[in-house]
């Protein structure tokens, strides 16, 4: 599973993407992925908000993650 990072999320992680290659590594849900990231990078908890997109659609915490999903971390948007 590939996870993309944008904006300040990219700065926090220090990379624009991250791969969970084995089935066992991959978080099972959006919520689990968020928890994993917040534990690994405490800076995430300081953000105003953090959303997750699965296959380029906003996804709630209970959405399951599959190995071939494209997942993206969406820090507070600020277009316009």
């Amino acid at each position: 599973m590939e996870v993309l990072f944008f904006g300040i999320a990219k700065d926090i992680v220090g990379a624009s993407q991250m791969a969970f290659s084995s089935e066992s590594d991959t978080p099972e849900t959006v919520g689990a992925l968020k928890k994993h990231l917040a534990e690994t990078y405490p800076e995430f908890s300081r953000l105003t908000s953090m959303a997750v997109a699965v296959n380029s659609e906003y996804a709630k915490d209970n959405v399951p993650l599959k190995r071939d999903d494209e997942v993206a971390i969406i820090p507070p948007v600020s277009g316009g």
Partner: protein
Amino acid sequence: MKKRIEIVEHIDTSQVYAELSDPLSGGICVFVGAVREFTENEEVVALEFETYKTMALKEMDKIAERALEKWKLNKVVMKHAIGQKSVEEPVVIVGASSAHRDECFEACRFLIDTLKETVPIWKKEIFKNKTVWVSAHP
């Protein structure tokens, strides 16, 4: 084509009327967002925009569809620029055309307000001595 949704390097404001014009439209309302020289009294050198393009286009399309459902519109345009933009450069343009002016004004306001809430685009303010991701922190 009813909708024109784009992520572009540069916004060409001179095209927007041709894109929104329509024999059935008596009113066209357009909003342009541009880089402002000051943010809370601090001088801005430039803004840098980044996007998750596939998703941004999908989200912009959803917004345009919602506008077309809510109001009787003939055409809708939504374009956002990415990359580094200097003071006075346009960064976003949204607009709608309709038979009467109420609809295009309301729709235009909805397009920009909703774009700012949901479209995955991020803006970094570049000041003389620092850079700040807008809205990232409370």
